[in-house]
Every structure is written in C-alpha cells, then in structure tokens.
C-alpha cells in the first residue's frame, strides 16, 4: 500500500469511527441475554419517529435551496408520477430503512437522493455497475 493510499484509508476509518452511533456501552453486538424488553423496543423502533424526544433549543434558520435539491425533489416526484414507487415504500426507504446514523447524519435531500438511486437498483431498472459507471462519467465531465 502506498503511503498516500494508507493515509486515505486511515482518514476513512477515522471518519467512520466518528459517525458510529453512541451506544454508551463497552461492547457492540451484545450477548442475546443482555437485551431486555426495553432495549429491544428501543432498537426496533422506526428511526424517524422522533416526536417527544428530548432536545435542546436551537436557532431556527431558513435555508436557500441548492439546485441539486430541487432536482432531487423533481426526480423523486417523477419516479412516483410514472409509477416506479408509491408514497408508502418511498417513505419507508427514505425515513426508516436508511438507518439511524444516515438518517440523522445526512442532509434532508441527501436521504431522498440516496433512496432514489437505491430504488432504481433494487427494482433492477439499472445495475449497480451502470450506476457506478454513470457516477464516474459525470465526475469526469466535471473535472477541470
């Protein structure tokens, strides 16, 4: 491994460590007998069901919309308009299946976008290879 690759790998692992959910426990993946009913219920809830959770006051802000955010909204709506997904599966994928870390860690439309990519792969409209190649192609197009 070249030293620049090693550095990149270490940086990635560090970032991943940083976004691990705080379980306030020494061991992750505990023994089965360590999960009681209360804990089980907490882990199996839907992550988007946040009503009533404790939080501190923050400064509420307005936000200017990015062009890609509007495009993402339109893409998701067009996928629905033309029957690729319905509102129920779309919500479950965007809000629940994505998992707590990504749910809280990604921007609002970032979740939408990832989910739009996944539905196309999961329903076999595109292969994962096609998606990866397209991403590479778009990246190259925007390299200076």
């Amino acid at each position, binding site marked *: 491994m070249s030293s620049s690759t090693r550095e990149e790998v270490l940086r990635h692992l560090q970032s991943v460590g940083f976004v691990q959910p705080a379980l306030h426990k020494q061991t992750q993946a505990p023994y089965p007998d360590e999960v009681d009913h209360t804990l089980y219920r907490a882990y199996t809830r839907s992550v988007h069901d946040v009503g009533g959770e404790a939080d501190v006051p923050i400064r509420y802000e307005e936000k200017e919309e990015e062009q890609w955010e509007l495009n993402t909204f339109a893409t998701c709506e067009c996928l*629905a308009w033309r029957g690729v997904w319905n509102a129920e599966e779309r919500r479950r994928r965007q809000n629940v299946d994505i998992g707590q870390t990504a749910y809280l860690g990604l921007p609002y439309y970032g979740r939408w976008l990832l989910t739009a990519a996944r539905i196309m792969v999961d329903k076999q409209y595109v292969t994962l290879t096609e998606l990866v190649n397209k991403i590479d192609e778009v990246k190259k197009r925007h390299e200076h």
Partner: protein
Amino acid sequence: MSEHHHEPAPMVDEVSDFEILEMAVRELAIEKGLFSAEDHRIWTEYVHTLGPTPAARLVAKAWLDPEYKNLCVTDGVEASKAVGVDWINSPPTHFGTPSDYCNLRVLEDTPTLKHVVVCTLCSCYPRPILGQSPEWYRTPNYRRRLVRWPRQVLAEFGLQLPSDVQIRVADSNQKTRYIVMPVRPAGTDGWSEDQLAEIVTRDCLIGVAVPKPGVTSNTMRPIHKAVHPVEHGHGH
C-alpha cells in the same frame, strides 16, 4: 475529532458528491425511460409556481365571508378551489401530486385556542397550497420538541401566548395536511381581501406566528446560503 476532519470548505466551483449523484440518477432514469426529461422540466416548473399565496388568500376570504369560512373548516379540498388549488386533478399529473394526497384540513383558531402544525415522522406539508416547507420545519429538533413543549417552542419563534390560551398541535401525515386559520387581528376593520391576505404569512399558516397589521413577512431569521442556489426561470 482529528485534524483530518478539518477539511477546507468546498470551493464555490467544486461539484459536491450530492450534485454528482443527482446528475447520475436523473440521467440514468431518463435513459432507462423511467420518466422523460420533459416530465422533469414540467415538474420543476410546477414547483416554481408554488408558494403560500393561495393559503393566505383562503384565510383572507374566510375572514370576510362566514359561509366560505364554514366551507374551509368542513371541506378544505373544496374550499381550495376558490383560490386556484385543485388537490385532486391538478397539473402536472392531473391526479394530484404523488406525495401530497388530497386531504387538506383548515384549523380554525379562536381567542382561547391556538393551532400549530408539525410532521413528527418526516416533513409532510400542504405543498400545493403553501409551497415548499421551510428548513426548520424539517429539522428533527422542531419535530421532537413541538409535540412535547409547544408553548416553549412557540416562544422561541417569538410567539408568547397567555396561559389561558390552549395550544393544539396538529401532527401531519402522508395523507392529511393542515393549514392554520388564525384569528383576524384587531385594527383590520374595513380591509380588503388583498390587504388581509398580505398579513397572513407562511409562518402564520403553519401556526408559529399570528398576523399583525403592518407585518407582511416572516420573522427575520438567519439564512443558510446555498453553494449553487436554484436558478429561477430555468430548471437545470
């Protein structure tokens, strides 16, 4: 956090991972015929037509016409037609918008009852009549706290309600969307529909503010600027 996390802020001309993925997904969807480029353009144009104006007009009309007010409270979808919003047959799909369904409820405030709207599960919002939701409405913070500490949260928005005013929080969902019809404020006698509509701001319609003569815009809040903001007039 290690020093490695302190990456410099992206340059203005740098393309983000989200932008790359957005282009890739849209282009693939069009290439595979899942929808057309024209569909996407039409939808984007439709979004540009949305905003809080129809909902403000609905409230102003209701303040002036008790019969219409009654229609608003009993059948919000029917009442929306008078302000140009057809929830059931609207373009661009002609079967309503895929993610807004068609069940608008208009919540009538009284001097002793204040409504305020949230969506605890996501960000459900009456888009066809009120436009896109503000960023703060989508935050986990607002969604977590409003249902449990409504009086405090409203105070943070600058709305301090007397203790004899009851607060009712409406939790939107995939099918049911809400707008608040606030109490018509004093000092508006003899005002026209246009004048009244001007003081019914988006924040009033969500319920985090109440209309006041002379106040025609939302409370000033910090604005997080976009790196590549939406260009109005042409889609992408």
